[in-house]
């Protein structure tokens, strides 16, 4: 089987479900909204000017995870996966198409989200974002796009392993909301290697951990790759 028709089918699945299209809009809206709120609040003088522009990513990532989870969880309802795999029996190829179909729209929306957040951040009167260099701004936008994509794909892999959207959400969302906030302040520890902490370094102007912006993103990518590999393995091995 060729890859392109399978990918086209998976993209069509995303386009034809209103909840998925809505989920992508949710990523954009929540990120921009919370970034704008954070920008309006002047913050302390020691607040990171780049992160204040992308502050909303902490909320947008929840929407990104919901998007990735929903896209895969839809296959585990009723006999949907049976119909999908009867049409595309090469499961590895099918899962790769699913991953690309989630990842590419998410990356485009993520980059757009980064641009809009930056524009809004700079538009706030007296914004500290005005002092950012061109390079830092590009890094923030690109980092925002890739970070959100990696989180959505992390959810894709995890949902394929757990075979349930509820299980994935109840694992990932509390993890991001609680675990990271609680142990996140203990910088310089293993907490720096958690997928969200590592990936968000790219959204900061300065950092003091062992990970830089791109190495941090690479660590998140490793988490995502591991989740996707586990998802593919589980899908290929199990009966449906």
């Amino acid at each position: 089987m060729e890859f392109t028709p399978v990918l086209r089918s998976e993209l069509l699945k995303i386009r034809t479900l209103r909840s998925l299209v809505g989920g992508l809009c949710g990523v954009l809206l929540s990120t921009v909204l919370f970034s704008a709120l954070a920008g309006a609040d002047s913050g302390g003088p020691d607040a990171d000017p780049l992160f204040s522009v992308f502050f909303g990513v902490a909320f947008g990532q929840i929407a990104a995870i919901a998007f990735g989870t929903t896209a895969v969880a839809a296959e585990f309802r009723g006999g949907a996966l049976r119909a999908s795999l009867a049409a595309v029996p090469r499961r590895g190829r099918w899962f790769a198409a699913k991953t690309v179909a989630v990842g590419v729209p998410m990356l485009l929306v993520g980059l757009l989200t980064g641009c809009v957040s930056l524009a809004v951040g700079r538009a706030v009167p007296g914004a500290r974002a005005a002092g950012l260099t061109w390079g830092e701004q590009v890094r923030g936008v690109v980092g925002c796009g890739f970070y959100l994509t990696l989180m959505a794909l992390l959810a894709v892999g995890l949902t394929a392993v757990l075979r349930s959207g509820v299980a994935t959400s109840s694992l990932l969302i509390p993890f991001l909301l609680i675990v990271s906030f609680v142990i996140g302040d203990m910088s310089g520890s293993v907490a720096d290697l958690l997928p969200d902490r590592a990936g968000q370094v790219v959204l900061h102007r300065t950092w003091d951990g062992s990970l830089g912006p791109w190495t941090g993103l690479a660590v998140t990518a490793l988490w995502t790759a591991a989740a996707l590999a586990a998802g593919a393995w589980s899908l290929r091995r199990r009966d449906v």
Partner: protein
Amino acid sequence: MTSIDVQNLTKEYGTRRAVDGLTFRVRPGRVTGFLGPNGAGKSTTMRLVLGLDRPTSGTATVGGRPYAGLREPLRHVGALLDAHAAHGSRTGRDHLRVLAASNRIPGRRVEEVLEETGIAGAAGRRVRTYSLGMRQRLGIAAALLGDPEVVLLDEPANGLDPEGIVWIRTLLRRLAAEGRTVLVSSHLMNETASFADHLVVLGRGRLLADTPMREFIDTRVCPRVRIRTTDATALTAVLARHGHDAVRHEAGHWTVDHARVDDIGRVVSSAGVPLLELATEEGTLEQAYLDLTGGEAEFTAPAREA
């Protein structure tokens, strides 16, 4: 010539054998009814044929090849496994478009199968608004999408209204007449009798029968003649003289077991017994099936002491 070949197929879930050393072949050009009590392994066998479950041992092939090895499988094999396969928030048309895209099936086929299954009018509605009967029709539309030589339908008559049942009967007959291989599982005996040419019967994962339907019934149900007369004494006398036992029923008619209407008719009329009715009581598939599977049902109700 595309047939489904099942060879020594065994599937274990833990310690339970859902399918146990199954061997049979489903041939093209006829409708094969796939019968068996609940839990006999019909659906499991279908999933094994479609490569959705991995067999513990043995093989299942379509046209000599494993399903997973087919390029664009929907163009060769169409299957309805579950009426709830379509996402409730997608429209019926979009569900079919998604499936068509993956196997490079042209978009006009989507409209054709929507027309053919009678749901074109509802194609723009979300699947969650469909009745069970409409979902079944959508599932059948999906099975027919790639114009496949092989069609597998698991309980397709579920939830269909009487008109739908007549429709599916006609559809199955037509698909077989076009030379396709058609395998249809069902637990509705009268329904199956109305469309099947051949039967494959399972019980506890094993093959119980693989025979033409007529033969299946004839070997399991004794033929019986039904008679009504105004002169019961003369009737019983003449039948007894020819070695037949007539049994009287409350409704007023008589039956003779192990007899053919040709013989009884000749005997009775030559003796001048007035007849109101003389007919063959055909064995039904249901009788034959129950005779065969009596001991095989996994969940039979315990016999109650009177």
